[in-house]
């Protein structure tokens, strides 16, 4: 008889798996955020990169420290803290003091995520809660927008970044001031939070994620579509409403956070529509100019209910009932 081999590894099937793991998914999200970062660096100058790096670093540090304190296995290798940090930075005005941004990172990573046991166990999106906490806690710095003049002018002046205090298009819209053109809104040569300005760059990132099958287009489409339809019904300019504020960033990068959004496609569509409705309600009626983050947070909280009503049904069961 031939040589025997003993002590082979015995494990449950399947013995192969898809090469995509959590870290690759998160890495793809970071890659998808790069175009938006590039545009905001172009618009706001080097401080945009600095802010992003500081937030990402702070998030990784808090993740590492809290795992250490909890005596648990370290999870910074899964890139999720970096994603949270970058998205949080994208939600802040570029002139925000760094220490405040770091508090936001603390809220996001420690309060929202690690207290509940870490990745996958939080019920609300860390970056959203971090942003809302900063928004409510530091109302003034969070709504102080220092920004370049119009991009074309900056190029003509060749003076690089010339910071003046300005208002975001949504604030101008709320105040009834003259608005930037839709092209400017789309390209992102406007004022606003660091990563929110360029709809185009965010869209490129979103398409990358859809192509890489990291996100399903259900939530972004439902969200953006609802915002557009509602603005038409309410008599606003849909292109402006979609490109302004955090709709693009929220719909593509924050509402699609797996952990805090429904698991089935029908649930995701409900989730996206809900986000769109609440966003427009807050924009049109509440005292805050922007409602994307509140909308996503509320839908995060509703996610368990959405999940339980959109449970996938067993194959063939209805069919059988119909036959009978």
């Amino acid at each position, binding site marked *: 008889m031939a040589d025997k*081999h003993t002590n082979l590894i015995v494990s449950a099937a399947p013995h192969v798996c898809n090469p995509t793991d959590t870290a690759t998914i998160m890495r793809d999200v970071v890659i998808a955020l790069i175009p938006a970062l590039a545009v905001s660096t172009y618009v706001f100058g080097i401080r945009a990169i600095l802010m992003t790096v500081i937030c990402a670093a702070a998030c990784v540090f808090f993740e590492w420290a809290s795992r250490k304190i909890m005596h648990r296995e370290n999870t910074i290798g899964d890139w999720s803290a970096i994603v949270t940090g970058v998205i949080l930075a994208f939600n802040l005005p570029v002139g925000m003091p760094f220490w405040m941004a770091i508090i936001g990172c603390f809220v996001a990573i420690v309060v929202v995520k690690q207290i509940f046991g870490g990745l996958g166990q939080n019920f609300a999106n860390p970056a959203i809660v971090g942003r809302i906490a900063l928004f409510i806690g530091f109302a003034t710095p969070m709504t102080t927008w220092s920004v370049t003049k119009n991009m074309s002018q900056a190029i003509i002046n060749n003076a690089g970044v010339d910071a003046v205090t300005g208002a975001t298009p949504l604030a101008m819209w709320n105040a009834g001031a003259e608005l930037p053109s839709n092209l400017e809104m789309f390209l992102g040569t406007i004022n606003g939070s660091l990563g929110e300005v360029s709809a185009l760059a965010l869209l490129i990132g979103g398409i990358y994620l859809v192509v890489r099958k990291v996100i399903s287009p259900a939530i972004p489409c439902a969200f953006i579509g609802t915002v557009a339809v509602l603005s038409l019904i309410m008599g606003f300019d849909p292109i402006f409403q979609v490109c302004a504020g955090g709709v693009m960033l929220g719909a593509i990068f924050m509402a699609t956070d797996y*952990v805090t959004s429904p698991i089935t496609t029908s649930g995701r569509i409900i989730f996206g529509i809900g986000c769109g409705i609440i966003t427009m309600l807050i924009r049109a009626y509440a005292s805050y100019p922007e409602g994307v983050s509140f909308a996503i947070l509320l839908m995060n909280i509703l996610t368990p209910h959405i999940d339980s009503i959109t449970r996938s049904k067993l194959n063939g069961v209805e069919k059988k009932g119909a036959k009978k």
Partner: protein
Amino acid sequence: MSSGKHLKGVHVNHSKNTAGMPIIPMPVPERVYIPMSMHIGAPCQPVVAKGDHVKVGQLIGDCDKPVSAPIHSSVSGDVESIEQFMTQNGRVDTNIVIKTDGKQEIAETVVPPVINSREDFIKAVRASGLVGLGGASFPMSIKYNTKPGQVDTLILNGAECEPYITVDHAAMLAYAQDMVDGMRTIMKWLDIPRGIIGIESNKPDAIAKFNEILAGSTDISVCTLRQVYPQGAERVIIYECTGRHLIAGKLPADVGCIVSNVTSVLKLQQFLTTGMPLTTKFLTVDGNIVAKPQNVEVPIGTMICDLIEHCGGLTGEVKKILLGGPMMGRAIPRDDFAILKSNNAVLCFDEKFAAQRKETACINCGRCVAGCPMNLMPARLSRAFKDKDIDALREYNVMSCMDCGCCAYSCPARKQLNFEIKQAKTLVMEDDKKKKAKAEAAAAKEAAKAAEAEAAKAAAEAKEGGNK
């Protein structure tokens, strides 16, 4: 034929390294070890004794229970011993060890069976020793013994959706005509009007071959399946070929179908024409450290290590050996097990492939839901299993899982989802048993009470009568 809708699944790298290789018979090994339990159901009892001389195709084990299949010798030689030891299923079983003489004389009993009726046909199917060769090892005579008129479609499963395995493909290329003849025989005796051959679209030559043979005939058609795992699973292929849903707990016959593997039908046809029962198995031997990956015809009872030796041995240190494909196949702890009727591949891998992947937290990405052909929610099931929440497990239809492994394959957190669901199923079944026992106990108690009351009543009546 298919309704345009498809069941979900996952795209798996095919890795069909042995594609296009013909099936080459392997020379008989020095000894074969034939266990008495190679099928679902009651194990067989040896009908030969130590020292007996046996020939190829000779009956060596049988059982009078209905759910069983007889076992025949795959070699000619002498019964060296009848021993108890562990087989690849992890059970200790009676094994007949035969020392081969290399002559491969064919037994006198090997004569084509005479069939005049449906009953004769079922009897012949049983005599062939055939079990479902796709891996289920369910005795074929039971599967075919349906009520007349119950079944309207015979599906020939040539999907071969598992990676690496190409042996069915090779068999289809080599024996397409026999398979079609086999189908027609089955359809004739079981009175089935329609036959469908389901083949995954990555085997265009096999599809072309069948189409050529079937040109002009209306009884049998070829259904091209998508290249999505698991097309070969019984419930999936029934849906893809007929649009009928087979729900958990039902048999294919309940939805009017019989599904048979291509090689099952081939072997049946061979038995009906030559009388030679199931004694050899077509196997793919592959894996990243097998020197000469190939398709071989192996006598049942051959040791796996002998088979690997035949395929040029190993080029690296083996860490994992799989019986079957990587999606549903079983990893075995040692390689000195015998090949059974239900095996269809032996895959050997080294450290690089076998390394255990570290499990991380579920991020609720929904890939498992998107991949589940049964439309289950594996992530929720896994959570319910963790919480030991049996009600939730039932609510999320845990029993409908068919163990295809799509969920675990696609999980980015590397969770062993289908393994957990498997355990969860056991949990639910135990709970069912407990509940049943409880209900029975309650019923018994009730009955006892009633009886007691009856007795009391009778006694009272008797007393009353006495008083009168």
